[in-house]
């Protein structure tokens, strides 16, 4: 099966990496603090399962809800700027300017706005970080359309909405999914780093800072592992969604690879 072939290579590479990691550390054994071998991280992961799972659920919620809101807002803004010239002239430069702000640096400020222990500020960081790649890529996909396809729709006297649905939206799909894959890892990073500064104290971010502060590096790594799992699950879901939403696209890719 093609889809299995796609997933098996990273799994093999992952197993090889962990094997190498474990092997190197067993030969050149340090004190095992800063970089514990995978076996110890797995041990800490299982020992602290309750806390890690709770943290993963809290952080996972921040990631998924922020991602969803950021994606919806990004797509809506992209549709708006392709539809209305004035929207394009006002929103696009504004978005570019705002995008130049290192948003993650706003985390402590957002905490001030939303309350130190509220997850809202973390969600807001995720939304802001996800919004831009989705907005910019989707807008590009909606506008960079084959001219003859638009003219064809015009020659059939198709309305603007119909042309958007038949031509612009499908054309934007590959752009959108590329941005969405990027956004999943951005969302996990944004959530955890934002949690360093505030939000619920049993989330993954505080778990990492607190464990590292107590030099319990295996616990810190267990929390990192949980964050990695969230990112991996999201990425895989997006990849599945992409294949389902654009069956024609994997076809184009496989042809390009063959030639």
């Amino acid at each position, binding site marked *: 099966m093609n889809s299995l072939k796609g997933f098996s290579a990273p799994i093999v590479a992952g197993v090889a990496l962990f094997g190498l990691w474990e092997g190197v550390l067993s030969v050149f054994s340090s004190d095992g603090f800063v970089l514990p071998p995978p076996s110890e991280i797995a041990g800490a992961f299982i020992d602290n399962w309750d806390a890690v799972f709770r943290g993963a659920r809290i952080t996972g919620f921040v990631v998924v809800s922020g991602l969803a809101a950021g994606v919806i807002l990004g797509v809506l803004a992209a549709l708006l700027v392709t539809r209305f010239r004035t929207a394009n002239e006002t929103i696009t430069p504004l978005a570019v300017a705002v995008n130049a702000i290192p948003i993650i640096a706003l985390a402590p400020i957002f905490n001030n706005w939303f309350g130190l222990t509220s997850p809202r500020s973390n969600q807001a960081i995720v939304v802001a970080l996800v919004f831009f790649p989705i907005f910019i890529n989707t807008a590009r996909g909606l506008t960079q359309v*084959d001219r*003859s*396809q638009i*003219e*064809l729709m*015009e*020659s*059939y*006297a*198709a309305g603007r909405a*119909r042309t958007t649905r*038949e*031509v612009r939206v*499908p054309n934007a*799909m590959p752009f959108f999914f590329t941005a969405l894959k990027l956004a999943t890892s951005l969302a996990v990073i944004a959530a955890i780093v934002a949690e360093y500064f505030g939000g619920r104290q049993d989330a993954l971010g505080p778990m990492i800072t607190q464990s590292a502060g107590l030099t319990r590096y295996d616990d810190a790594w267990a929390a990192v592992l949980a964050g990695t799992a969230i990112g991996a699950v999201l990425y895989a879901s997006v990849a599945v969604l992409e294949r389902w939403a*654009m069956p*024609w*696209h994997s*076809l*184009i890719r496989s*042809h390009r690879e063959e030639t």
Partner: protein
Amino acid sequence: MNAIHIRGATKVFNPGKSSQVEALADIDLAVEPGEFITLIGPSGCGKSTLLRLISSLALPTTGSVEVNGKPAEQARLDRDYGMAFQTSGLFDWRTVAKNIELPLELMGWSKADRRRRSSEMLELVKLGDFAKHHPSELSGGMQQRVAIARALAFSPSILLMDEPFGALDEMTREHMQDELLRIWRDTGTTLVFVTHSIPEAVYLSTRVVVMSPRPGRIAAVIDVGLGDRQASTRDDPAFFSKVTEVRAALREVEG
């Protein structure tokens, strides 16, 4: 009533800017219903632009274009046009059959009617086995045949084709020429066709319009008058003498 009537049309792109291009000047052309007109001329002389004016995808800077007795814009809204472009313009996200059905969907045909028509059209362009394929799985020539099938699918009263056979091999090209002539005769469609091939222009059309560049003008209109085309037409001395006549007119404009 003329099928197409162009009066004093000019087209200037980006007027007043440094990128200003005078694409067409003084175009007067009247096309009878059921005629097969071919536009031929050097690259950049405005053939595609003239097709765009006829289909009201672009407006003339001055002058007017009337189609079926009404302004071109109205004819477009009435869906009088079928178009095939220089690039196939197929939708990768639709199967071959669904590409052909697109105009039928827009015109509200029932699903069963659409299915029937798309399979008829696929037979016509000899792609019956490819209904469920996506365009990216087809060769360039096959894609162009799908685009032609799409243009013909709803039997428009006016067909505008911009070098549709450019990507085809010689055998397929001759086959498609004969098919196009058959469809044209059977449907009574008015056809405006752009090509770079002199023999193709002579073989297909009732009249060949030779255009000159910068700005694009109609340099000569040659009546072909070869009657019904047959396999033997391509070897007919009368055919060759028309080819020579068109070639001479083209030499003149290319200077």
